[in-house]
């Protein structure tokens, strides 16, 4: 899903959330960075990030297939689509399967 032609600079809202929530520096934020393997975000952390992004953008982030979001570029595409759709944030979220 990642578009390799995308600019490597991440959306500042994503960069801010990743720094504030998890201490991930902007220098680690390549578009092809995998949320799991490269940024070490477990499923719980991805939902934590989602809640923070919904709060900072005010729109609902509700991808059709959450498991398709593997890289930072994927996440950025989903965020941009959500902003374009403009659904208000904070309907119920998919619950994590972490114990």
């Amino acid at each position, binding site marked *: 899903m990642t578009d390799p032609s995308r600019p490597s600079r991440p959306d500042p809202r994503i960069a801010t959330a990743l720094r*504030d*929530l*998890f*201490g991930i520096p902007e220098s680690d934020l390549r578009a092809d960075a995998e949320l799991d393997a490269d940024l*070490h975000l477990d499923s*719980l*952390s991805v*939902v*934590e990030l989602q*809640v923070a992004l*919904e*709060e900072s953008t005010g729109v*609902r982030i509700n991808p059709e297939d959450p498991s398709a979001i593997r890289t930072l570029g994927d996440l950025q595409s989903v965020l941009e689509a959500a902003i374009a759709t403009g659904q208000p*944030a*904070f*309907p*119920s*979220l998919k*619950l*994590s399967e*972490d114990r």
Partner: protein
Amino acid sequence: MPTSRTAVVTGLGAVTPYGIGVDSLWNGLLAGRSTARRITRFDPSDHAVQIACEVPGFEPTEYLPRRLARQLDPFAQYALVAAAEALGQAGLLAEADGMHWPANDQVDSRRVGVVIASGIGAIQEATDQHERLRTGGPGRVRPYLAIALPLNMAGGQVAIRHGLRGPNYSVVSACASATDAIGSALDLIRAGRADVVVAGGAEAAVNPLTIAGFAAAGALSRRNAEPARASRPFDIDRDGFVTGEGAGVVVLERPAHAAARDATVLAEVIGYGISNDAYHPTQPAPDGDGAIVALRLALDDAGLGTSDIDHINAHGTSTRLNDAAETVAVRTVFGNQTDRLPVTSTKSAIGHLLGAAGGVEAVATVMALADGVVPATLNLERRDPVCDLDVVVGEPRKQALRTALSSSFGFGGHNAVLAFQAV
């Protein structure tokens, strides 16, 4: 399954209203400086009680990775910082790869346990997320609530961070919680279930909900205009306790295990007494009954008589009922030995850390034994006639100390007493 009747203390850690670290606690107690102030955690203007002993300037990411800090309520943050200090002093932090075991091949991580208690737990997380639920709906509640809220997560995260794979659970007995945690750690070592146990308590309850509730119950001092004089155990003008926050953690170890790896031994835990008043949810039994049982059990467990004890770190909350009932209990147990027994209340300086109190007071008791000095109790200006113990006032009292007791009593009728011995 090697066992031992006693356990040695090989590490101490503290986060207290004096700041981070055992040194700041011990220096503050010896200096006799009160830490009670007007509350800054929230605007207390509408509250009947506006004072507390807060941990000053605590920025969790100075001590913990940001991601881990985000997963923790402040009570657990305090626990992790104190545990790291204690493990470091015990020589049980691996230097090579930061925080992960095995620190050395003399220690089996499956035999390193953690028992970290709290009386209240993640009240800040609960109230913060409840507010988000109320104002934004279910989708605003953060998923980390599921790991920040449970009371066991302080100990769980200590184990995860440091790779400690042995027995791990929490105990809850209100203001006796941390003392019971250390007693449980002693039991684990006696039973042969662990060689090392990281034990203590953590609390972060300077929160509008907790303060309002404990104030409504009449437990807290209302001396808002004079916070530094508010916690005054055994004084005739005492009017309740001052809420404190922080964590106190000890590393207990099977003596032969510590000796085999040449660990520095700070003191020994030789006895534990535990009982319940079975009397009232908040009031101690006026005749000190349950406390008497716990004190006697601790002495018996340690194989000591009343003449063997050199010092008591009292529960000494500064409530009218506790200090009177505790005095009755000590007098009943120690009889004519009472008048030669220096007593102090750590709570006079740092407030009542609730489920962490016994952890910090265990640290203070070990330091008293190691240094041969009992810190003074602050604000004891006019002794209540019903509190006629030899409470150390003014300057710290230098005195050779061989043994000491640390007492904790809690809402619910819980009584717990630990016996320590100098090395």
